[in-house]
């Protein structure tokens, strides 16, 4: 088989976290009773008119600036006309000719071999404002369908990437990076389950080395980042096989079926809508002033990429650790709050990434809801640092803290877990261990270093983990050499 190169571009729809809808004052609250958050405007009642939500505009500009986009000085909306029951006016107010954000770019980190990361620049084609449609409800209805217009008119930002992505993994990484930036900007809750982040993928393949683009296929119904990756993998294989068999790929829209792990044709290019875009006459074009853009620019916080660089520089973390920590703004905030308690940053990073995240994920909560707050984790790490407990004991203390909300110190005191640093006591145990393991001692003496590890382990076991492992090690070596 020939070597085929995939060319991927993504369209991401982000719900902007405004309190009210894009063109009316209705609430954007998720999960309300059907059609509660509606008014003549978002219902599309005859005679009603849209008025732009300024906060949505500010959010859109904020994202544009963060994605290094050229922010348009003239803002215009267009009507995208098509018939569907979830679209109350039979047109969606969107932006076609003059998107608020033009070309930009974002850096993503492609994971390379053995923990290294390769930065890649991905072009942003545009990021424009538009209104969401309502939702059709079919379940449990015998005759026809019902429509819930609560979502109709909620502001969306459609972020379109250039076809710069070359693998499903890169696509995944792009989405993770984009989500991370959006979270840092606090413009969306990026909740995929509630549909506040949605993605369509465009993909074509071509023989490696070829510069002309192949025929692209659009994939819809992608409900998670993993689904995007899997659907792309499937589609790349499907298209490569077709090319290999000299079949013609048709331009079409395909739906991903998570259950079947396949894509299915939805409509061909010939069946595609003619949206008859034209400038929305109900919203006059206007200019976003330079001072307003500057004002918005000032609200942009430190973004993940810059934060990762700072965390590496200030705390000496590895590129990989920094990357993992900063991706989730709340996790990075947690880390920095911990470090402010004057404990070793590397220890903090390790403890967060290994033990804390496991507990948090298991409990299916966000790190910000974790019962062990940064000061609590710092307290635990401090006990390790000053040899009050061993790291091994600490691994038992943390779940206890998580479950009870008690401080590390309280648990250590209650359960008498304070580390044994009395050399005499450790020496007693060590002697017993040496006597009981003559064979292993023999091995150590014949030069087998691993044998020492076993003996240290035995000491730890005898002391129920309370012995200071470093001390145990030293004492054992001393005794073994002496006898």
């Amino acid at each position: 088989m020939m070597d085929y190169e995939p060319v991927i571009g993504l369209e991401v729809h982000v719900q902007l976290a405004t309190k009210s809808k894009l063109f009316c004052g209705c609430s954007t609250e998720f999960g309300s009773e059907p059609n509660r958050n509606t008014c003549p405007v978002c219902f599309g009642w005859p005679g009603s008119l849209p008025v732009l939500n300024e906060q949505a505009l500010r959010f859109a500009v904020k994202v544009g600036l963060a994605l290094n986009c050229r922010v348009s000085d003239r803002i215009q909306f267009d009507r995208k006309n098509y018939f569907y029951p979830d679209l109350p006016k039979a047109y969606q107010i969107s932006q076609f000719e003059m998107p608020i954000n033009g070309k930009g770019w974002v850096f993503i980190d492609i994971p390379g071999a053995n923990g290294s990361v390769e930065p890649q620049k991905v072009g942003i084609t545009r990021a424009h404002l538009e209104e969401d449609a309502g939702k059709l409800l079919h379940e449990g209805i015998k005759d026809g369908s019902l429509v819930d217009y609560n979502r109709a008119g909620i502001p969306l930002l459609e972020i379109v990437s250039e076809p710069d992505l070359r693998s499903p993994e890169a696509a995944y990484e792009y989405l993770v990076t984009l989500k991370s930036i959006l979270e840092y900007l606090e413009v969306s809750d990026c909740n995929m389950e509630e549909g506040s982040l949605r993605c369509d993928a465009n993909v074509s393949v071509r023989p490696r080395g070829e510069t002309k683009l192949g025929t692209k296929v659009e994939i819809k119904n992608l409900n998670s980042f993993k689904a995007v990756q899997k659907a792309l993998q499937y589609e790349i294989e499907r298209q490569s096989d077709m090319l290999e068999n000299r079949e013609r790929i048709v331009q079409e829209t395909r739906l991903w079926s998570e259950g079947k792990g396949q894509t299915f044709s939805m409509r061909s290019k010939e069946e595609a809508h003619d949206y008859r875009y034209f400038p929305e006459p109900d919203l006059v074009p206007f200019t976003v002033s330079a001072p307003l853009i500057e004002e918005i620019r000032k609200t942009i916080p430190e973004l993940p990429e810059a934060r990762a660089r700072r965390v590496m520089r200030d705390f000496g973390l590895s590129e990989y650790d920094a990357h993992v920590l900063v991706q989730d703004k709340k996790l990075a905030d947690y880390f920095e709050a911990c470090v402010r308690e004057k404990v070793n940053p590397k220890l903090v990073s390790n403890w967060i990434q290994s033990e804390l995240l496991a507990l948090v994920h298991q409990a299916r909560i966000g790190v910000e809801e974790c019962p062990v707050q940064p000061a609590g984790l710092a307290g635990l790490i401090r006990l390790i640092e000053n040899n009050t407990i061993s790291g091994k004991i600490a691994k038992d203390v943390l779940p206890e803290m998580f479950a009870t909300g008690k401080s590390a110190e309280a648990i250590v005191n209650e359960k008498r877990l304070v580390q044994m640093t009395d050399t005499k006591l450790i020496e007693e145990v060590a002697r017993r261990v040496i006597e009981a393991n003559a064979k292993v001692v023999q091995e150590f003496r014949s030069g087998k270093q691993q044998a020492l590890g076993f003996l240290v382990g035995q000491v730890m076991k005898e002391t129920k983990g309370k012995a200071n492992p470093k001390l145990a090690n030293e004492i054992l070596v001393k005794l073994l050499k002496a006898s």
Partner: protein
Amino acid sequence: MSETTRPFYQLTLKEAIRIAQSKGPDEILKAVWERAQALNPRVNAFLRLDSGKPAGGTAVLQKPLCGVPVSIKDNICIQGVETTCASRILKGHVPPYDATVVEKLKANGATLFGQCNMDEFAFGSSSETSAYGVVRNPWDLERVPGGSSGGSAAAVAADMTLAALGSDTGGSIRQPASLCGVVGFKPTYGRVSRYGLIAFGSSFDQIGTLTKTVEDSAILLNVISGHDPRDSTSANQPVPDYTQALKRDVQGLRIGCPKEFFVEGLDPEVAQSVEEATRTLKKLGAQIKEVTLPHTPYSVAVYYIVAVAEASSNLGRFDGVEYGLRVPAKDLRDMYFETRDEGFGQEAKRRILLGTFVLSAGYYDAYYRKGQKVRTLVRDDFEKAFREVDLIMGPTSPTAAFKLGEKAEDPLAMYLSDIFTIPANLAGIPAVSVPCGFTRAGLPIGLQLMARPFDEALLLRAAHTFEQETEFFKKMPVL
């Protein structure tokens, strides 16, 4: 005749307010209601009429309009009252909210009196496309009242109401005003909120007034004008007291006559009346100058591209899903087809098709985009002309009222009825039609005056001066 000896339905809005201030509006409402009820079977100016109970008891007397009746074109939403745009597709449609102008009328003490018949969705120049029967011209019941605000114009002309609101997209207030011998005022685009006006051509539509006198227009404009935060296209500009503008003085005003308005197709009797009006204004001290609006010949074509494009999109929402008519069918697609097939009349379908065509892929640049460019040229024509003159005058309509059915089968001839009114909509400028004479057959003729954007005050002053000098408004149809 003094205002106390004439029947109350013959009162102007101004006179009625004065009487209502002392006696309350009840007698006036009763007289107008009886008149409207008696004549409506013949004129069909109203789609819905009720006895017109004054709103708000005695409190209404403290308000500027004192409970006097004002009628509303049936494309302006009134909360809780059926509003249909004279279309089958909106039969039974009850808006859940008031249009801004309705809110303002209510707040100022008007009694909303009946809803006026019109061309379906304001598509037409004769009020014959109404799904609920044609409107007849009070001056000759065999003739059209013009359109699309034909019901509003006919009701005012026949004393079936004191004043009415209409909407003007390409002449829909001025042309029927001209054909019915009343005053029709289209304000600057953005002067009056469109919120609650069921859209036809969103970038052209403007609510305005149909009244017996220019002064009555000023009274109503005072009530309905002004910025509305719910309409992004409404202008945030101060509204002067228009009744203060009504001085009888055109001394030194420079009035332009565009040579493109006096061309073939203009009825000689209309031309004669307008020329007579020119002499009158000159006699009153105005300077009459010839001006040129070179892109006028393209106006109708451009209008029927851009306005129908907007209309095709605006009418998409009438799909049987949320409101109005729904024809049940085997699936969604057929429900759309059958609902829209049964719900829309022929002219609505024609414009939806035309609008859909000019916006479709491959034709957009050739039609819609080019149309917008020509629209800019038309606007530039006016800007240039208004550097030399303060007002522009000409005929409102190329002919007086034509026979029912005369142009119904010939859309192009019908479209040309708006040849002189469309340019003001393309440019967004204010314009008024004021009676300027009668044909030998006794049909009214209208003079059109146009002004710079937001110069309604000057327009009212000139129209008022002309009206008071000529007194054509005193002649009434015999019914």
